[in-house]
């Protein structure tokens, strides 16, 4: 079953906090190859993580 952006965004967040199943990974990958918005979202989550680290360093 194809993921919606809503489902993909939840899984992308969880992928930072737990191991994904192979099925979840495959569905996420497929969704990301087709969806610019979720690719941006995924990148933003990582940028957020880096920014939090910098925020506390200053």
């Amino acid at each position, binding site marked *: 079953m194809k993921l919606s952006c809503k489902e993909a965004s939840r899984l992308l967040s969880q992928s930072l906090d737990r191991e994904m199943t192979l099925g979840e990974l495959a569905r996420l990958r497929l969704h990301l190859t087709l969806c*610019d918005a979720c690719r941006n979202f995924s990148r933003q989550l990582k940028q957020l993580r880096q920014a939090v680290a910098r925020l506390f360093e200053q």
Partner: protein
Amino acid sequence: MRRYHRRTLASDLRSQIEAQRPYLLRYASMELRNSDAAEDAVQETLLAALAAEASFAGRSNLRTWLTGILKHKIVDAIRRASRERPFESVDDESTIEDLEALFDETGHWREPPQAWPEQALQEKQFLQALEKCLTALPARTAQAFLMREHLGFDTPDICKELGITSTHCWVLLYRARMALRECLEKGWLSR
């Protein structure tokens, strides 16, 4: 003469430690969301640092050393607070109903996330905006997020310390990330 010299060094270190107080307080306040608890954690940190002066000897960065001590004090404070005031499982922070509004009926983003320019992320204003967005988050959501992203807790440990289920934990983290990215995109990127 030598004794005098040693005493000067010690009081130097003491005033350097004291000078880090505002930084540590800002840091603890962001994590704990409670000024009394933050004050206490910083006070405990400074006392522990003074008591352990010798273990600092030879280390190059005083702030890093103090921050390391403070992190432990913050974790203790979070643990104490969640024991005294257990997390309510039914409250506004545990649902994602309000996040549904970010998507249309077919599950597509109503406002698709943009590509954030890497250059702009290096700007001081970005970090200021992030701090503001963090402050706007509900307390527990912010705490769970910072425990994960900043203190580096694993999700099971966050759940344990906050006394919540792992599903609940993922929801809090998801909420925090969704809210922060939206806040940053609206407040900072669209300047």
